[in-house]
């Protein structure tokens, strides 16, 4: 085929993404080097917003950890968001892995139906799925009213909603189905004769799981980990609906800086620091587990 045809076909989509994705992200970076002075934006280049995030100051204590910053809110919320997101991601992988295993090794017929069953919730309104936890855990919610109706408790429990745990449960619920698919694809690719060979050579069920299935599932498991971890750090809907004041995350801060606090340049700087920290963590993680070697071995 003609050599120019490829780039010409790609160009429209590429240009749209350049205009609606790359340019806005570039503008965000630019804005983070400006400052908000009253109602005006001062367009002189400065690192002031970034300095403000790391500027030393008397330590503020959060959960026993000192944050020695003059303006500790971004640092605290970032650490908190990372911790909550990591916990939720770990829970997601632990819950999703056996399901993926079931799908790959147990389901013989109607595999597509199972996959559709797992896919449907992911594609239906995130907002509504998060809101449904408010109905489950709320003061006048399903759990409380159910337990009262059963006579287990007399008064509604008020610690169920509006805390970090509620956020983490909700995040886990929102992402488990999504995480099953990449793990499942990895498991499905495993050459079954490897398992038979191991069995013939005397490996037990658990030895086979530990020495063959688990290592060979890693590309999908790692992909699922990243696909859940990366977007959940900056989630806005879940902390807003079920987090309350204790459960706020860094996304809520970004939103506030852009709206109520009217400091968009600071909001831009916080967004960029958040993305850089996530990217750095992801790179360190991939490095630590030897991602390239792993992919080469699994033939993915």
């Amino acid at each position, binding site marked *: *085929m003609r050599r120019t045809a*490829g*780039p010409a*076909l*790609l160009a*429209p*989509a*590429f240009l*749209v*993404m350049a205009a*609606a*994705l790359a*340019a*806005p992200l570039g*503008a*965000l970076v630019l804005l983070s080097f400006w400052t908000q002075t009253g109602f005006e*934006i001062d367009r002189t280049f400065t690192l002031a917003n970034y300095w403000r995030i790391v500027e030393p100051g008397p330590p503020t204590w959060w959960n026993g950890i000192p944050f020695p910053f003059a303006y500790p809110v971004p640092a605290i919320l970032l650490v908190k968001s990372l911790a909550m997101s990591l916990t939720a991601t770990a829970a997601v992988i632990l819950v999703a892995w056996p*399901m993926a295993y079931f799908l790959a090794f*147990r389901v013989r017929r109607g*595999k*597509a139906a199972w*996959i*559709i069953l797992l896919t449907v*919730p992911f*594609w*239906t*309104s*995130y*907002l*509504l*799925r998060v*809101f*449904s*936890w408010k*109905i489950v855990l709320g003061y006048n*919610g*399903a759990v409380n009213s159910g337990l009262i109706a059963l006579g287990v408790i007399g008064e509604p429990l008020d610690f169920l909603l509006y805390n970090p745990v509620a956020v983490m449960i909700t995040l886990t*619920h929102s992402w*488990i*189905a999504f995480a099953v*698919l*990449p793990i*499942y*694809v990895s498991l*499905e690719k495993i050459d079954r004769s490897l398992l038979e060979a191991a069995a013939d050579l005397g490996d037990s069920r658990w030895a086979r799981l530990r020495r063959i299935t688990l290592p060979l599932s890693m590309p999908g498991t790692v992909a699922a980990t990243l*696909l859940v971890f*990366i*977007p959940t750090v*900056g*989630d*806005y809907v879940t902390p807003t609906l079920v987090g309350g004041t204790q459960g706020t995350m860094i*996304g809520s801060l*970004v*939103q506030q800086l*852009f709206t109520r606090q009217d400091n968009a340049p600071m*909001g*831009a700087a916080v*967004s960029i620091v*958040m*993305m850089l920290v996530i990217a750095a963590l992801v790179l360190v993680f991939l490095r630590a587990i030897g991602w390239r070697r792993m992919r080469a071995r699994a033939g993915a």
Partner: protein
Amino acid sequence: MSPRRDALTWYAVAFVAFLYGPVLLMPLFSFNDSNFATFPLAGFTTRHYAGMAANISMMEALRNSLTVALGVSAAATALALPAALALTRHRIPGRALVTGFMMLPLVVPSIVLGVALLVILIRILGVQLSLWTVAAGHLVVALPFSLAVLMSRLEGFDPSLEEASGDLGAGGFGTFRRVTLPLALPGVISSLLLAFIISFDEFVISFFLTGTRNTLPVFLFSQLRFPNRLPGTLALGSLILFGSALLVILTEVIRRRGLPADRAGGL
């Protein structure tokens, strides 16, 4: 069946119950004859659905959402189909890099996409927020999915069919129209449906980029603050869930049609 197999099957059932349980409370309580989402259930009613058609702002938000979603669905698919052809059938310099860039919205938190678009539109271009700005944001998040669906479809059938068409004298466009497009059609349809559903359900970006005219999720979010509107919200939410689920099932069924059985499970 060995006992272990039973345990795993039970696990899968529990998994699905956990996945669907909370969400299904919404339709359950929406038919409950009470203004609270509480047990025990009071009795069956459809009264929470009755007032919906008369709710002008809800209907307007619905119309806005449908308009935006239809536009985004068509635009995303129209842009993604040639791009998918380019990335699967042609030599593209830096193919991996370009694909990575196009898939970037999958890993950028939507709040960042939302504020980034807000910055460039308001502070730099000085554009008024409207349904157009919402649609631009939705296009960015929908395009990678359309692209992924179409690329996987195009990779799923034998390119020698297209070569044969070329050998038999069909031109580039003739081959596209008579061979590639019919074979890619399920992918095209699922791309249309998927982009529609992404746009229709998208909240965070809309929340930042919406002007005076709301989309349905933004309207819904504004209703969540009022406890006395809970029943109506539940009814609306149930309808959205039901409609979305129907579209997703349709998308998945169409997407899998004609794929070899061993690929039918894949993404």
